[in-house]
């Protein structure tokens, strides 16, 4: 590809970074190929399954569709950041305790969307849970346990 590349600068998991990106490069390619971050995964390639979810300025985006150049200046958080200090995030703890995953391929996306949900609605209703997680698919069908995990995470966050 001879497309002109440009340098972008953004905050990745709390650190300032730069990357050389071509106009067609997606965010997930840059995270994978440039930074060795594999927690976001490309599955449907259409922004419909949520496996590639990352938080951009606090909001979940599909990194398989999001062009990397648009991340210039943004603050980016991937699942790898949540337990960066060695301590699991309450959302991660809750997913383990509720048994809210099977194959685990979709789990980072669900965990990040749950984090966004609880940041915006610390005590979410069932409808809010379904609304926020409607863009994440779990082919193993672990939805009942995921709902349980979200409620457990809300309680954990509320009590600290």
């Amino acid at each position, binding site marked *: *590809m*001879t497309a002109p590349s440009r340098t972008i600068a953004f905050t990745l998991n709390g650190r300032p970074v730069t990357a050389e990106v071509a106009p*067609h490069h997606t965010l997930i390619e840059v995270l*994978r190929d440039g930074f060795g971050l*594999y*927690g*976001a*995964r490309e*599955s*449907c*390639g*259409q922004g*419909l*399954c949520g*496996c590639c979810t990352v938080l951009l300025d606090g909001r979940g985006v599909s990194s398989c569709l999001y062009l990397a150049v648009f991340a210039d200046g943004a603050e980016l958080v*991937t*699942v*790898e950041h*949540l*337990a960066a200090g060695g301590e*699991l995030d309450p959302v*991660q703890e809750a*997913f*383990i*305790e509720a*048994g809210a*995953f*099977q*194959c*685990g*391929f*979709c*789990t*980072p996306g669900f*965990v990040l969307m749950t984090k966004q949900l609880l940041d915006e609605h610390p005590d979410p209703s069932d409808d809010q*849970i*379904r609304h926020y*997680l*409607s863009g*994440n*698919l*779990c*082919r*193993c*069908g*672990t*939805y*009942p*346990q*995921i*709902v349980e995990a979200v409620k457990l995470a809300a309680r954990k966050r509320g009590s600290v």
Partner: protein
Amino acid sequence: MNDTAFVSTGQVGRSLPRVEARAKVTGTAEYIHNFRLPGMLIGKICRSTVPHGRIRHIDTSAAAAIPGVYAIVTGEDIRKIIPDPYYGPAFHDQPILALDKVRFVGEPVAVALAADPHIAENAARAITVEYDELPAVYDEVEAVTATAYVHDVLKPAGTFADLKHLVGRRQTNVALDFHLRRGDVEAEFAAADHVFAHEFRTQQVMHTPLEPFVSVAEAANGAVTIHTASQNPSFVRVEIARLLGLKENRVRVRTAFLGGGFGGKLYIKLEALVTALTLIAQRPVKVSLTMEEQFFTITRHPCTFRIKSAVTKDGRVTARKCEVYYNGGAYADIGPRVAQKSGFAAAGPYDIANVHIDSFETYTNRPPAGALRGFGTPQLVWAYESHTDLIARALSLDPVEFRRRNLLRDGRPQATGTVMRDAPLAAVLERAAAAIGWGQPFDRGSGPVKRGRGIAIGFKASISPTASVAIVNLSGDGSCTLYCGTVDMGQGSTTAMAQIAADCLGIEAETVRVIAADTDVTPYDMGTLGSRSTYHMGLAIQRAAADAKAKLAALAAELGVPEGTNLPIAELFRRKYGAQAGNIIGTGSFMPSHKSPDPQTGQTDDATPYWMSAATGCEVEVDTETGRFRILRLVNVADCGTAINPRIVETQLTGATVMQLGFTVYEGMEFTDGQLRNPSFAEYKIPGIRDMPARLEGEIVTSRQGGGPFGAKGVGESGTYAVSPAIANAIHDAVGVRISALPITAEKVYRALREAAGNPLPED
């Protein structure tokens, strides 16, 4: 050895979190999806655009001229290094890349290789192929008599005795015909009080694992290593060794966690292709499919099932005739096993004296079909449980009572003649009925919105006979490593196997390290399929642990340690070697007894080591003005013997329910003239969190499987069996119409309602 002699030390039955839980929530669990090697090339596939045709010419020049393209590879290029490049578990019918002919839209024809995936993709699009189109066949019933033949000559792999008679057969699309004959159905039909006959159909659906199919290969010094998202690495090794003319020990196949499998990642998928590509390119090669491409790789069989029953006036089924047509698509994959292993249970879990079954696996010009969570069983249960419900309603019998009257009981022969043992069908049925509140009054709705309830029950035999081998390794500090070829694709096998090993050894399950399948180190296992691993691998692990314990006892005796001293393992090693050193290796293997069914009558007294059963109860609300329906409650009850990890079993049960809910009301591959119209999540909808019934429950019936490890057996598929007919039966109960072809859509319900009202809608 008496396998039930183990007394549990409390590790089995614990609902501990999955041992890999932390890795999965932090995004660090290993999947082949993320695997890469230095110097690796990416392969992108150019696929057939016609359903059936002879390849006239492949023009690769424009693609090869794109800067950055390493090579363009066609079937003929592969034939130069692998003279007979056809693979498959039942038939050697599938070329690594199309040769001479294409047999379905989407079949791989050529591959573009480049270091940059975007360049490879552009190059794959620049390959042009000319075809001479041939007449095609798409329907499984038409395929039996059609004169369009998908294959010029049949090539059974030689592994299965019941396919030998098909060697060299021409002018047929039938890849297996299974027959079962018990008693005299025709005499019974002639004399019966009532005879009922129906036809039911299921649609083509796909596993859509969220980790799409992926394989990476590298070759050096006469050996090949394949890193692949595979459910049966041992099979891949044997098949690749056969294709390359190598000994097994020159082929290494390793896996990691699978991002879902559901039967899709079995046998050869991309493994032969990446192997051929790496041998041609002399560089490591990775092929990762897109979600769209998965639909052109493997699917669940569409099925047409004609079923006919003789019933006495007091509601006893005395004869049943089943004609089952499985649509196997262009390549057989494991389809012939589906037609046979499911075929013999096509009459359902009922005690019927006279049974006649013909089950056919057919070739058509569609994407291939293989195993998908149930191995043909959900298609059968859809038919026989819809049929059973219709009979009960026609005879004004309570549907649960009608089933109760006819259910197979332990000690009675199933249609093959194999006596049922440890199959608590009655308990499963009663529990599902009680859970849904069967027989109790409920709100049947008001105005245009009506409510109804439905129930269904299904069963399945294990795939037999198959072997598993395990190794338990105790190290100098006493820690335990388990080498086990069972692949964890989300079912929780890593945890369950650690629990079984730990229980036998009297240690904590969390301390056991389980080595993921890698044929260089893990011993043979037939495959992670057919809900076989807990039973077969579980028994192999029990035996390996017993072997290790016997060797520990021998070591203690050798060291003069008095019996019953209970010295820590590390101390035994220290006394033996004078340091933290040494190993004790315990090995174990298991293969059940089995007797092949008689080729004419399908009779055998040893069809399976165990039976699995599940029943579903459903409550539904139907809007009679639109046909829209809402599932209010779905309860799935299964028997798994002893639950090794009850929490994981329940999650599997509700998960399988959700998956089969998708196959019942949302999913369906739609074709026009062999062209798939909806190969993406935008148009092929799988269940999301908003699609969950208001109440979704999974329940285990406590039982004990004789011969199983700690009384356990498999449960991975059970939750899929009875969901579809339970929903159809509930809709019938609510509004009196019957949907006989999956998926059940609002449009179909509305059309049926209009037809029942004598005011049918015009066809499109």
